[in-house]
């Protein structure tokens, strides 16, 4: 579970990258993600991954991203084996595995460097309905709380003799019921309480709520966006017309 948490949860860090407008951070990740999808060469994918690692270094999150990468290797290996077993070419299988790793790290880069506030900002920029954005932000805010709840529930049930580490797969899944039910029940109760608090703080009073913080993009943001798009175009050109080598 930890690598998931490490790879996708925002933690406050100071860096030039973090200070970019979140829409720019989203753009960068989307462009890299797209390159990873359309690439047909293992070397290109490795290049993309390397580029993400360079950005991670600039964002001072290299250790977390590389740790995420190491853990995804497990899944990547699985993908490789699966493809090879069903008859795909060796190199093609490696390609698919590499693509998986590239996709994960480009996505991870965005989520690690973007706070929930900024996520909200991005969603608002796309004019998503207010209720959806609010539900999303609140859900993210409660992730750490629910993790704590889950731990406390596990402690309580272990104290009643529940052995979570023993038994075959079926047993272990069944042992999750005494943890999941209280978790779900608590979530339902929580939702009810949140709804009361929302009403009491005039949620929905006005169709267009105002916002405490003003987000404006700076010159740096604009420059980075332009450079990113240009590099993206160059990369696409290179992938398709300059290095049309198959697979490798």
């Amino acid at each position: 579970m930890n690598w998931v948490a490490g790879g996708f949860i925002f933690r406050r860090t100071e860096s030039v990258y973090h200070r970019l407008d979140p829409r720019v951070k989203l753009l960068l990740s989307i462009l890299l993600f797209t390159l990873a999808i359309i690439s047909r060469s293992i070397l290109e994918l490795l290049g993309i991954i390397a580029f993400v690692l360079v950005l991670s270094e600039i964002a001072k999150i290299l250790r977390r991203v590389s740790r995420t990468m190491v853990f995804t290797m497990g899944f990547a290996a699985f993908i490789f084996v699966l493809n090879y077993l069903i008859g795909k070419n060796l190199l093609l299988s490696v390609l698919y595995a590499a693509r998986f790793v590239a996709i994960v790290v480009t996505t991870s880069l965005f989520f690690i460097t973007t706070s929930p506030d900024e996520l909200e900002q991005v969603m608002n920029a796309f004019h998503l309905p207010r209720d959806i954005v609010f539900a999303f932000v609140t859900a993210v805010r409660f992730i750490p709380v629910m993790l704590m709840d889950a731990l406390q529930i596990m402690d309580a049930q272990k104290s009643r003799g529940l052995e979570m580490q023993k038994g075959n797969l079926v047993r272990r899944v069944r042992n999750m019921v005494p943890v999941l039910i209280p978790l779900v029940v608590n979530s339902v109760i929580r939702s009810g309480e949140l709804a009361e608090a929302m009403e009491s703080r005039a949620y929905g009073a006005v169709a267009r709520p105002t916002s405490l913080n003003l987000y404006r993009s700076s010159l740096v943001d604009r420059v980075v966006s332009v450079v990113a798009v240009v590099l993206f175009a160059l990369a696409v050109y290179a992938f398709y017309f300059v290095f049309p080598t198959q697979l490798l």
Partner: protein
Amino acid sequence: MIEFKDVTFVHPTGTTALDHVSLTIGDGEALAVVGENGAGKTTLIKHITGLLKPTSGAVLVDGEDSRERTTAELSKKVGVAFQNPDHQLFSENVEEEIAFALRNFGFGEELVKQRVDWAINFFGLEEYRRSSPLTLSGGEKKRLTIACILSWDPGVVVLDEPTVGQDVIQKEKLSEIIRMLKSAGKTVIVVSHDIEFLWPMQTRVVVMSRGRVIADGPAAELMLQRETLASARVSQPQLVALYQALKNRPPAPFVHVHDARNWIAGLVK
């Protein structure tokens, strides 16, 4: 017997939650652990059943190191009632809820039935036998969690903040249960910041502050040490504060309101 031998526990985040704690709790003892939120009280009791393992030092339960056993195994001897019943109730009905732990501990069905009946009877839960535990009131849920623990008759019972959110009548019932546990010879450990609730029980008291045990002794002596208590951000029981402020007082502080009443009535003829 529970022994803490120079136990230090450091969280993964770096904070030291327990700082060289050494403590021995004998069989049949009654102990209150007090201190402000964050002093390490809950961390302490989590070490008893191995939910947390010491970073250094050792915790022994009847001679066994807590690191050598799973929490489930240790819980057979040490029943811990956590603060929030909503973090453990999940069964279809009250019967099943009590049976859950019994089955986990390997009790045969015949014995399970016996124990469930006893617990329901003892805690006055007969009318809720087939009801969902989630439909019970706050006080009833609390009683149910304690009933669940007593059903497997552990030698040690630990209550973590049992009075939070309870009203006077519910607290009375809790006091009775604790009294009953003591007279049954069980080792009882109550973690609480409710000094007024703890005072009449006149147990041994351990005061914790910032991961350390800063005082350990009988309630009647310890609660007189205002500065020590203040440094742990623990208040004195009202009766003790009153006792200390009186010019003319008996040899020992008042335990119950009527003791104080009678004494004062004698003074202000």
